[in-house]
């Protein structure tokens, strides 16, 4: 097997064919993961210590009967045990999948029902938890028919079990990462070691990553940005990474800037909303203690990239040494392991100003002067990484010329083969080796501009929410006419992300008198199942929702009707 070498200007990673080999060949004394809770609770594991912990987890999983190529689901809080169990499963040749950890808002019964759907699809014999409360929650609520055992992860001890002896096979499935959807409807993306390493090689080349780089992350590990860029990348390339949990960060966003300053981290990935959140939710008096001069690439990813968010962040923190070109952009998705495109590592993402009306009505980008009336600013997501091809297509898959808006389709050397156990869903999106992403965009001068979604997906703070999931929950309420609810996203300029709006018909107009109680029940149900808060719920009389010719609620037309009736919802709507 020939050695892998770099394909660009980044560091090379030689002679490994799997992620397991990459971990086994790491210098044992080199720092790997630093887990930050607060100033008094910071712990670092070197690669040697981490590998030993992963071997302990592998030994425990094997003792629980987990075999090579078995799938195993991890329901654990962000921390060393989760990271080590994930790596330990891979050491065994098993296939780990991380699911979102239930929090206090989660309805245990609904979470467990969703989890049982995932378990059935993955045919996972084991769920790993790390604490008694999660174990009790799952034992009490998981349907008895699932046949899955719930086991605890190993605790860090002085044991030194040997590395499992599994023949390296680059084409073996390394792990499953999940695409958007509620727990029960998630689509599992199975990725081989070869696909992951290929993606990482491209990413390293595009960002010119070297041994002197270090990563910071608050991102959840059940999301591709957190798992691939902030765990698999440092694991395979032997880089240090500083992590804190999403819940820890969201309560004190300034800690990200504090850690970037203290640890001199050079790379980080965030969804767009985080830039505005950091600009507006950190006390100005705290800025004096930040030194962001080491940060060379803060990659804006997983939500549409907005110029306003980038500009606000750079302006807020330029006095802290932030480079004016530190914020980069990328277009990425779980189905491609991670990134398809990346903006130039030497500059800021390119911008073009186009006529907004032409873009919306004729779906074509007509460049105009930045200060022209009706101009819209589009921010590039960059150029294709090596091995990646992008086409902009129309509804039947024909390629569109540069400047025309269509669906983004990709064909790459690290693309998934299909959704795990779901050939039906796979057939909807894979066509002759091209993955139709469902995202709308255009290509111009070799750069990709992502305009929005063609599948009505709502993206709230980097989290993908299917409107169908919200509508399904709303329609379970006895006062709501079944099938007469729509959910959609509207831009929240204060947060730089989307808010969820719901419109639903009551069965009987008299029930509008109970709107406060109904609305409260709907909010309860949505947050319990989807872990997301809805901004506004509009209860409407019978026959208010616009129906399609097939008799179903017409989402886009109803959205327009609601926006016309409630213009206050149109707060600085972006392009699409």
């Amino acid at each position, binding site marked *: 097997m020939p050695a892998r070498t770099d394909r660009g200007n980044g560091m090379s990673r030689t002679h490994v064919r799997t992620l397991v080999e990459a971990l086994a060949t790491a210098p044992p004394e080199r720092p790997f993961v630093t887990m930050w809770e607060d100033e008094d*609770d910071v712990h670092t594991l070197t690669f040697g210590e981490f590998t030993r912990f992963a071997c302990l987890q592998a030994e425990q999983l094997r003792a629980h009967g987990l075999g090579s190529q078995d799938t195993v689901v991890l329901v654990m809080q962000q921390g060393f045990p989760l990271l080590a169990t994930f790596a330990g499963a891979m050491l065994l040749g098993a296939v780990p999948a991380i699911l979102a950890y239930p929090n206090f808002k989660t309805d245990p019964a609904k979470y467990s029902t969703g989890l049982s759907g995932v378990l059935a699809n993955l045919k996972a014999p084991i769920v790993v938890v790390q604490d008694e409360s999660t174990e009790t929650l799952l034992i009490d609520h998981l349907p008895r028919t699932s046949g899955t055992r719930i086991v605890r992860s190993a605790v860090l001890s002085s044991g030194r079990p040997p590395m499992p002896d599994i023949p390296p096979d680059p084409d073996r499935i390394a792990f499953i990462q999940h695409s958007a959807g509620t727990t029960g409807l998630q689509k599992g993306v199975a990725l081989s070691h070869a696909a992951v390493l290929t993606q990482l090689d491209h990413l390293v080349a595009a960002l010119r990553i070297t041994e002197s780089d270090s990563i910071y992350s608050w991102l959840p590990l059940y999301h591709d940005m957190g798992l691939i860029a902030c765990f698999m990348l440092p694991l395979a390339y032997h880089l240090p990474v500083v992590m804190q949990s999403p819940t820890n960060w969201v309560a004190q966003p300034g800690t990200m800037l504090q850690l970037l300053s203290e640890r001199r981290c050079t790379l980080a990935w965030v969804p767009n909303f985080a830039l505005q959140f950091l600009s507006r939710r950190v006390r100005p008096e705290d800025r004096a203690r930040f030194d962001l001069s080491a940060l060379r690439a803060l990659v804006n990813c997983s939500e549409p990239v907005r110029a306003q968010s980038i500009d606000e962040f750079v302006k807020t923190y330029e006095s802290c040494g932030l480079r004016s070109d530190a914020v980069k952009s990328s277009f990425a998705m779980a189905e491609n392991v991670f990134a398809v495109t990346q903006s130039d590592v030497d500059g800021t993402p390119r911008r073009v100003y186009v006529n907004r009306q032409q873009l919306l009505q004729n779906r074509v980008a007509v460049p105009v002067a930045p200060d022209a009336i009706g101009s819209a600013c589009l921010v590039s997501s960059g150029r294709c990484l090596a091995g990646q091809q992008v086409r902009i297509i129309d509804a039947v898959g024909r390629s569109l010329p540069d400047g025309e808006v269509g669906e983004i389709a990709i064909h790459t050397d690290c693309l998934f083969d299909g959704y795990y156990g779901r050939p039906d869903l796979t057939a909807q999106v894979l066509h002759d080796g091209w993955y139709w992403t469902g995202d709308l965009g255009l290509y111009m001068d070799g750069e990709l501009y992502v305009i929005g979604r063609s599948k009505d997906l709502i993206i709230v703070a980097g989290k993908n929410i299917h409107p169908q999931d919200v509508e399904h929950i709303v329609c379970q309420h006895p006062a709501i006419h079944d099938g007469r609810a729509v959910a959609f996203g509207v831009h929240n300029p204060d947060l730089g992300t989307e808010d969820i709006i719901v419109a639903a018909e009551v069965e009987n107009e008299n029930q509008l008198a109970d709107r406060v109680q109904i609305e409260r029940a709907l909010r309860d149900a949505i947050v319990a199942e989807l872990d997301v*808060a809805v901004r506004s719920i509009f209860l409407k009389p019978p026959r208010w929702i616009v129906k399609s010719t097939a008799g179903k609620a017409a989402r886009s037309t109803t959205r327009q009707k609601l926006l016309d009736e409630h213009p206050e919802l149109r707060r600085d709507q972006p392009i699409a």
Partner: protein
Amino acid sequence: MSDQTQQMIDYIKSDVIRRPDIQIDENTPLVSSGLIDSLALVDILMKLEDVTNKRISAGKVQPKDMDTVGLMFATAAKVGKPRK
């Protein structure tokens, strides 16, 4: 209900939920009921610091400790330190 409690409730109604007409008391679940999102907790925490004149280390606060206005003041009393 104390002035401080009323101050927090008024702030949450007008600045966070942006619906002054909504009924909230010190025991109304806010995050677990979907009335507010976790992202709003950082604003609420800063307001709580101002209202109580305490420095509250967010790292020691879990979202469940902020689910009602009553819990917020209990949390401030437990982990807050007087501002210098």
